[in-house]
């Protein structure tokens, strides 16, 4: 079953669409991944990127993140209408940093332990928020997760106290 049946992208899907940075680049430092496999007529990410690192010619082109220009700043993360921009950082040994958008309550805070959710919405472990900032109501949250879960985890859930 493909992502149009499940709502879940596989690593091969992303590779095939040319949306996955190389492992080499991921290990070098943070970089944005546009998990946007359909040719939606939208260019917000390209417009908001301060480094012009997202390349599109026509409005419906897939967003191509230029690995040399992108520094993984995460400005695109809260602004993508599809909440499909993530920043992955595999430069630190033994762990991965995932930056993702978050639009729920309770509010995220640095140091908070959170449940890690897979692409299917299953709890696959716990992580710690290392950074959280808000842009127009959307939080951009960076969580530290086990390194082997860098592709699996795509959401967090903060339990109510």
């Amino acid at each position, binding site marked *: 079953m493909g992502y149009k049946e499940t709502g879940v992208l596989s690593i091969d899907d992303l590779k095939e669409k040319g949306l996955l940075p190389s492992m080499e680049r991921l290990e070098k430092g943070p970089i944005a991944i546009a998990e946007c496999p359909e040719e939606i007529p939208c*260019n917000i990410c390209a417009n908001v990127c301060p480094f012009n690192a997202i390349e599109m010619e026509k409005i419906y082109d897939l967003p191509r993140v230029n690995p040399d220009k992108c520094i993984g700043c995460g400005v695109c993360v809260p602004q993508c209408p599809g909440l499909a921009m993530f920043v992955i950082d595999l430069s630190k040994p033994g762990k991965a940093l995932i930056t993702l958008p978050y639009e729920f309550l309770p509010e995220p805070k640095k140091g908070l332990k959170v449940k890690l959710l897979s692409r299917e919405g299953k709890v696959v472990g716990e992580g710690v928020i290392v950074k959280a900032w808000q842009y127009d109501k959307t939080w951009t949250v960076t969580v530290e997760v086990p390194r082997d879960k860098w592709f699996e985890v795509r959401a967090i859930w903060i339990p109510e106290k």
Partner: protein
Amino acid sequence: MSGNYRIIKHPIIDFRRGRRVIFYYEDKAIEAYEGESILAALYAVGYRVFSYSSDGKRPRGAFCMIGKCSSCLSIVDDVPNTRICIEPVREGVRVYKQRGIAEVPRKTNYTPAETVEINTDALIIGGGPAGLQASLVLADLGLDVVLVDDHFRLGGQLIKQTHRFFGDKKFYGGIRGYNIAEKLSKLVKEKKNIHVYTRAYAYGLFRNNIVGVAVRGDKPVNLLVKPKIIIGSTGACEKTIFFENNDLPGIMGAGGAQTLMNEYGVRPGDRALIIGSGNVGLIVSYQLLQAGVKVVGIAEILPHIGGWFVHAAKVRRLGIPFYMRHTITKAIGSNRVEKAEISMVNDKFEPIPGSEKVFDVDLVLLAVGLQPNYAFYSQAGAVLKYVPELGGLAPIRTKYMETSVENLYIAGDASGIEEATTAFIEGEIAALSAAIKLGVDKESIRKRRDELLDYLWNEYRLSPVVSRARAGKLKVTVSEEEMEKIRRGEYDGI
């Protein structure tokens, strides 16, 4: 009846509730806030049955929430057949449940509505994305505009959207729907040559080119507008489907739930099942989660997700399961939904016995598609065409958005279901064309219109994800020569 369904804290929307008022439902005091509809206030404290079918037997709940479906007819201050989903709460108002066909009103003291005649350059019907954009464009060209909308707030469906819009910055991409509504409404209200009427229903086109507009409120007015041109941007309404007990309270249009939770800040239920995985179904699922509603699943009759993948991924990673090749076969409950049954379907979309799954839910949202609101154009005499890709019946038009009724233009979802970006663009094209017709003929206007047409047809609509809508729009767009023939009744190529 108990409970509190008002959303106090929401991750995106700050609900600013009005003054506290008390009104009476079935002689019981109900606390509410100014700016709420009677139905929203009742829903907030736990009521779910608001009326009964015409034979008095079947309970009816909230369905459309925008005054169209007539499922909430109630007796308000001795006036029956009042649609309480669009009737604002007022201090001391007395409301009773209507059980089937009502007796004639007991209320007899009345103030007749004032009748006001208005001549204007342009009448815009509907203040959603297309209508707002068209009004602003016409006003900037110095024309006199009357903008009417049946809701008490401008913005159309924009006001119910918490997500940022896709598209291009030029057309409000990246801004949340309700923020776009606020922004454009503010601009519109600043223009001296746009006369805005809300709670204003354009009820028909009459002889001598008069459009009747009923403006409800404390001082009701019957506006008789004589416009030189009309731009209809009347939007769309939801479709519904058949299944056992499909009228049980708790079954609602997805838009109805959006109105409750995102406009009035009222949680539409505790546990919801969504029918349909188009963008509306996916977006409403996400919004339900934001409002604190558990979503037990999304059923989709087709083998694949109907909407855009990114919307699907958003809800999937938060744990909402998809049931592909499934449809709802039954709602269960005595006075309101208590359970819902879905079944798998075969290749002919027929339910497969034995494949049933039952969920404990109090809310079933139908997100099975939208259809253009064609009534005004049909009444005005415009030639319509049934185009499944556009959601139903849509008026034939030129690429300049003029229908077969001369000087009647169309834009937005009313012209065939698409999305907000195209609504803005169509609104602007219609406005520019109307301006040219009215003699405001500057080179810059034509140039702008050409650019918009080029962008719309040769870039935006070439996106594969909107190809179906493009194909639909092609079916209803004719050349000026063909339109002349249609007007003379000579063209049967449609």
